[in-house]
């Protein structure tokens, strides 16, 4: 792709948005977005598709010492592991474990389009942060485009049991500490 067309403008990835301090969400970054990504000084990227990201993206991460967490790639290739299926409890928990450790920040959560899988994990994070469900849903839907949200994702967010997630309180990022302290 011809980067020159954009002049000296920087281009965030599709569906990019800051979630909290040093926590970002987006769709899969392309080489067009690499100059922008570099401004975020990312330490870790949580990749939520069960397909591998593009080679150029892997190379970029490698080159910049960014760890990629493949939270949704099932090592045993289970039967129900299709790209169009949503995340399961295990992959949500795996992603959240990374999100709840401040050593991984600055951090980017992404999947192919940054809509449903990313939305699921961010939705569950909001639940941990004690957000009311309507606000979690509203945020999820904001990123789903004109075809709207998926009920199954919202049910996952609603059904998510925040007590099932174990974390080390000392390693929590500040924004979560602020919202769960009694």
């Amino acid at each position: 792709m011809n980067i020159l067309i954009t002049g000296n403008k920087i281009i965030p990835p599709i569906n990019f948005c800051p979630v909290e301090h040093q926590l970002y969400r987006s769709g899969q970054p392309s080489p067009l977005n690499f100059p922008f990504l570099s401004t975020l000084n990312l330490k870790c990227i949580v990749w939520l598709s069960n397909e591998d990201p593009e080679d150029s993206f892997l190379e970029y991460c490698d080159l910049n010492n960014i760890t990629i967490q493949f939270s949704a790639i099932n090592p045993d290739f289970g039967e129900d592991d299709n790209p169009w299926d949503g995340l399961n409890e295990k992959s949500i928990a795996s992603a959240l474990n990374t999100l709840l450790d401040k050593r991984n920040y600055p951090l980017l959560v992404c999947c192919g389009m940054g809509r449903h899988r990313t939305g699921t994990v961010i939705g569950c994070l909001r639940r941990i942060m004690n957000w009311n469900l309507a606000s979690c849903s509203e945020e999820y839907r904001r990123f789903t485009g004109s075809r709207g949200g998926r009920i199954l994702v919202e049910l996952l967010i609603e059904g998510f049991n925040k007590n099932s997630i174990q974390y080390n309180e000392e390693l929590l990022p500040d924004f979560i500490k602020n919202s769960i302290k009694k």
Partner: protein
Amino acid sequence: MEQSTQDLCLDLRCGNITNKQFIKGLLSTYNVKSLHDLKPILERDNSEVYTILENVLLQSEEPVLNNEDLQDDEVNCDEDLDDKYNAAEHKLRNLDILSQNVFYPPENFAHVIGNIYRSSFPRTENISFFKQHLKLKSILVLLSDDYPEELLNLYKKHDIKLFTCAIQGNKEPFINIQDETVNKALRIILNPENHPILIHCNKGKHRTGTIVGCIRKLQNWSLTMIFDEYRRFAFPKARGLDQQCIEMFNSNEIEQYALQRKWLPLNW
């Protein structure tokens, strides 16, 4: 009757009156109660005005069908209909809600960059979120309306400073957000002394979206991605005029101002 109709059309074309005032004028000139009654009369007697009216109705985002709709708010007819703020909705919420340790962020809430946040009009139940989670120091409202008393009291109680910088909605033709107005807002927003700051209008779609778009320009984002973000928050009511305003906004002056004070570049 002929003369006053002519005047109305002229006023509309010059931008002296809004679409709504135009329709109201026609209704009273022809002494009818609704567009339903007005349209056949115009179609029969004055096809020129009929065409203008049809165009006006096409431009309106929502149908204005009867006199009741047109009478609701004399004073605020420049206000965006879809952005209406309902004071009754903002009654102090049940204290039970607040004691649950559940956070209620306002609608369309998001982090913009650094210590800058955006949202729709806050409600009283959002205060604990503002204080405990965001630790807000100031709020910038982009409207000129009176601010609800109960919120003012809460801000005072929680040491949140309220700035006002009224900008016009980019809805009617002929109304443009001036660069100077945007600069004024940005001087407040970019000033680290005011951080953490929340920017809001009514729905957090149009005015807030326009200002956030201008912030993105200072970050040197490509316009395509700025518009994409604007539309995500304005969905399903994105306005072409807002996006034009972002594009036409000349950021040189505020850039100079902010660079001198080392407010730029903005940090995530």
